[in-house]
């Protein structure tokens, strides 16, 4: 297993190099650059704009720019400077708690998806065509069809205009209510964070929840119809135990690999949610960097998300190896 992990980690190096190069080309091919919008400012001269471009190395040939950037990353861990803030690109993207909030939102969403998708999927499979199964199917259809940003705006509208939560001192968007601005952490403040995050969990997790729940249901239905389940039941094992101890365990394998694939979806989902709900996450900083064509911050973000994807895939493969002895033959 250690050899397998080491091999996978080594493979990530050329993969990430390729990702950085393609990302660099994509950033360069975007029309204009970080200073193009300043061209419309009548108070700035061409000489000033040229000086800005020179200071950030944007006037150099493409290969030289990429080479310098890559050397900075490899030799010093320097991802370049943010044109927008003047901070190191890495800091502009990850510091000020952004990485922590991203990890918190992603990990809690993942846990919540599991907490709901697994039991509902199992119940739907064991009560096929029942009322709950049909209702869950409808929710899954809606969850997969409605775009996250639309769901977010509708939720906010419902909270503010229909339910008028403001009359009860409850806020929407951001991390906590106004009364906690500048206050030290307390249970009340943590409670306010939960209040502000539940719509985010719903918006970010809805699509994945729907997919997982249907996957659990489908896999379990297949397993429940297999001959070994007949043997299990014939041995007189209680139905609940037969389902949870034998069937679900077999049905869970594909879900483990799905979990790894879900990580990037969570990140892309929380990108829009971070903007709509005004969360101080890496995704929001990345989004603003794209809007402002801040090249080195965009690159740092793309590298981060690629690493996130690779690590997610690796984790799911490792879990799969741990769960299914049949998979170990090929390592």
């Amino acid at each position, binding site marked *: 297993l250690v050899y397998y992990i080491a091999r996978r980690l080594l493979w990530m190096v050329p993969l990430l190099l390729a990702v950085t190069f393609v990302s660099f080309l994509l950033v360069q091919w975007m029309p204009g650059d970080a200073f193009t*919008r300043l*061209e*419309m400012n009548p108070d700035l001269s061409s000489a000033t704009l040229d000086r800005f471009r020179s200071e950030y190395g944007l006037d150099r040939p493409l290969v030289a720019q990429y080479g310098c950037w890559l050397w900075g990353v490899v030799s010093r861990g320097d991802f370049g400077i943010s044109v927008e803030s003047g901070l190191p690109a890495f800091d502009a993207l990850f510091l000020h708690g952004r990485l922590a909030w991203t990890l918190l939102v992603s990990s809690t969403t993942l846990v919540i998806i599991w907490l709901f998708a697994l039991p509902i999927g199992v119940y739907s499979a064991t009560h096929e065509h029942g009322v709950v199964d049909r209702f869950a199917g409808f929710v899954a259809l809606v969850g997969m069809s409605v775009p996250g940003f639309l769901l977010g705006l509708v939720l906010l509208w419902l*909270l503010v205009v229909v339910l008028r939560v403001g009359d009860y001192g409850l*806020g*929407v968007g951001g991390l906590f209510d106004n009364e906690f601005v500048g206050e030290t952490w307390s249970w009340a403040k943590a409670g306010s964070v939960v209040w502000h995050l539940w719509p985010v969990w719903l918006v970010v997790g809805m699509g994945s929840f729907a997919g997982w729940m249907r996957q659990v249901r489908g896999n379990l239905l297949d397993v429940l119809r297999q001959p070994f389940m007949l043997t299990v039941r014939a041995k007189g094992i209680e139905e609940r135990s037969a389902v949870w101890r034998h069937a679900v365990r077999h049905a869970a394998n594909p879900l483990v690999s799905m979990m790894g694939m879900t990580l990037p979806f969570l990140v892309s989902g929380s990108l829009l949610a971070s903007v709509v709900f005004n969360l101080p996450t890496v995704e929001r900083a990345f989004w603003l960097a794209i809007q402002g064509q801040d090249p080195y911050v965009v690159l740092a973000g793309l590298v981060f998300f690629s690493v996130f994807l690779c690590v997610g895939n690796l984790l799911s493969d490792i879990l799969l190896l741990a769960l299914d002895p049949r998979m170990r033959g090929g390592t």
Partner: protein
Amino acid sequence: MGPYMLEEFVADQYVVLTRNPYYYAYDLRGVQLPYYDRRVIHIVVDHDLALLKFLNSELDAFDPSPSDLPVLASRAAVRGFTVEADSALPMYGSAWICFNQDFGLAEGLDEDKRSLYRDLRFRQAFAHLVDREAMIGALFHGLAVPQWSPLSIGSPYYAEREGYGGPLSAERRTPYPYDLTRAAELLDGMGIIDRNRDGWRDYPDGSRVDLTISTVGGLSDYEGQCLILVDRARRVGLHLEYAPADANTLLAQLFTGTFDMAAIGFTGSADPNSLVGVYAPCGRLHFAHFSGCEEPTAAELDLLSLFEAGAATLDNDAAFSIYQRLQEEAAEDASFIYTVYPSFRYAYYNYVGNAKMANPNGTPTGENGFAVDFVFDRRLMP
């Protein structure tokens, strides 16, 4: 030192300001200003969320976009807030349409269109198609004003301003009013007529006049202006298409002289010379006619000399007279056709006292908006 000091800045979330105890200003009763001990400025990226936060009573004041006004107005009385919108106080800046008078010049193509854009009669005809009243009504809910000149309406030298030195004489104040008949006459006079009876005007060689106007996709005010123009052009048989573009794509097209027609704007200031780079034949922003640097037109040279004369004089009366002439000539030249500009607007909860002391030159929630020294909370009054 200002009325407030920075207490805390949390990136992407908020800025907390506390009262400066050494602030120099006092009110008439001898109370030291500012009245509020603490101000929190929320950093909200999404404008829709900011609107919802205001409706949810999380923000005391808010600067709405024109499209927010119907939503706010219908709830103002129930929720206890006031929406102020003063159409007499437009903000600094300008919105315009311009033609690429060098269209296809580098490639040696499209001479017909280039000639069309260089023809003053065509630009004047197009200026007559700009239905400012419809734009103000449909896009700004009445909260915008027509704009006729390169100077910001907030500038003291803006020639349409009532008061010092102005307004323009009655016969010059609306150089090209919305007039479809006059536009059609000018086009007919140029020989731009419908030759094959398909409903669209053609060049003298029989090919259809196809024009494209671009603006930044997502800027609803500008997109709306383009769509109104497309409709008005259709009414006189001029085939105009609207093509939204990414901001940097459009700017790249402007600066490389590869656009067709563009509708966009500049930020502005009180300085009447701030747009000299747009009109000077060799100016960086002279994208309407970059080749004017080698072969300037008489109008370009004239406008440049007026800009230079205005900047050179210290006599305010003389300066006003120069800028008045400059604005008349710029409007008449119609290289840039100015459209409409939104008025100053803001919303605040009724418990905010002295909220009407807002400064039209800033946003109400920003430092230049409310006179932050004087606003107070009525709920705390005895």
